[in-house]
């Protein structure tokens, strides 16, 4: 069996395109409110902090802390069957308290990851030109 299984690819829309375009250019881009500066992820049509509809996006530092994680050992999509085990994580970004995203921790032994680990963004090819922002430990 050498059949290539397609990855689960995003279907970018008006709100999510900046994230995927940013990733393709090697930047972690998060929705940013033009009125109050609030960052929110995932993007929404309205700023939950000030109710402005005037929303843009901003490249953020790409540094953060592992808030939590798990190590999937069963594939619920065929694309992940040969990628087990991997680290599925929530990372809290340095750029705003409580600003978190779902991601993967890569370039690491899964069992060595700890809550509180310092991590930085890197980009893995997902397929069809999409780059996926993931995180790796910041070497001390």
């Amino acid at each position, binding site marked *: 069996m050498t059949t290539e299984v*397609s*990855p*689960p*690819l*995003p*279907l*970018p*829309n008006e709100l*999510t395109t900046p*994230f995927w375009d940013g990733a393709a250019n090697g930047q972690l881009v998060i929705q940013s409110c033009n009125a109050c500066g609030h960052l929110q*992820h*995932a*993007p929404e049509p309205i700023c*939950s902090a000030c109710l402005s509809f005037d929303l843009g996006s901003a490249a953020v530092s790409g540094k953060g802390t592992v*808030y*939590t*994680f*798990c*190590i*999937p*050992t*069963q*594939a*619920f*999509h065929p694309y*992940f069957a040969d*990628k087990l*085990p*991997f680290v*599925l*994580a*929530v990372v809290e970004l340095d750029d705003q308290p*409580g600003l*978190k*995203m*779902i*991601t*993967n921790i890569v370039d690491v032994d899964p069992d060595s990851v*700890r*809550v*509180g680990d310092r991590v930085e963004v890197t980009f893995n090819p*997902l397929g069809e030109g*999409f780059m*996926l922002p*993931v995180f790796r430990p910041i070497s001390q």
Partner: protein
Amino acid sequence: MSKKNRVAIVGVGYSDVSRGTGYSLDKLTAQASVAAMDDAGIKPVDIDGVVVHSFPHQFVSSTHTAAMLGIPDLAFYSGNVDGAAYSVAAMHAIAAIESGSAETVLTLRTVHKDGAAGGAAMLAGGGGKGIPGNMQFSMPYGSFTGSHWAGMYMTRHMAKYGSTEEDFGSFAIAQRKFAVANPTESFFHEELTMEDYLNSRYIAKPLHLLDCDYPVDSSSALIFTTEERARDMKQKPVFFDSWANGTTKEADFSLVGEMTHSSPFMAADRMWSRTSLKPSDVDTAGLYDGFSFIAMQWFEALGFCGEGEAGSFVRSGATSATGSLPTNTDGGACNVGRRHGANFFIEVTRQLRGTAGDRALPKKPEVGVVSNAVGGFAACALLTAD
């Protein structure tokens, strides 16, 4: 708390339940409805409200359910796909009866076995069109099912409080004892050891297979009515003393502000603010166990133990038949199969009205608590015997 209309549970029932009934969602729904009407001793003409909660991709219509059952006219109906599973149906029905919008309401939760995994796989799967909406920020990372956020909730609790896999295992072991005593409903008939638990395979480490509810085809039905009407029905009524929903500011389960202090805390605080009862008054509990950590969070949220202390609470034997808070006395959804919360309302009702048969608790309970869900949304209620 005083109410315009005190709401009673007067009938409970299940469909046939198995790993593969081959029955449609509608047939399961109809079976459970008939069982609950039989239990209450009423007929379709006595019902003027129907509320159904279902998955969006396994939708069950409330108006179609009424038509199937020959209910002539509905004063209140709602078909929900949002929020805390069965308890959403329950809360809508309670609100309808308290407000006088309806008198006797049939509430339902119907699910096919592949409901929880099937939806995500379906959305991410074919068509080649890609993942719509905000799921494009989770699925490409391999986050597809509840087991993924559940594993992350467990890790967070372990890191924050020093809890262990054995803590979660202690809950699986404790509720399996009840399951063994419920052979007609449980799918599992042998007690568990800690070794069994730890040797069960990981789904999303630290989450083990034995932390997960058991996927089945099922429909569960409960009938609620006013205190006045309840007096004329077949069963002893069980009453809602208080109830509450709660949500977090963030809708995404993986992105809630603090995983160890999620919506069960909001719901529990609100519920306790609406009653004169206290945690020490509660004699039995039915706490949602879609994953075992969820029931553990409810022990902490409801104030039966301190935050971070659920493991030692369970290990003390408090949740056993002879403990201070016998919990999930039917065996829980990990053992009787996925009923998405309804089984706890049904089992606590059976214990409070004295129809639990061989499983009747050694000390007849007067007050019970039930709960549903975790993370972004949750609900709980206090039930009292007549």
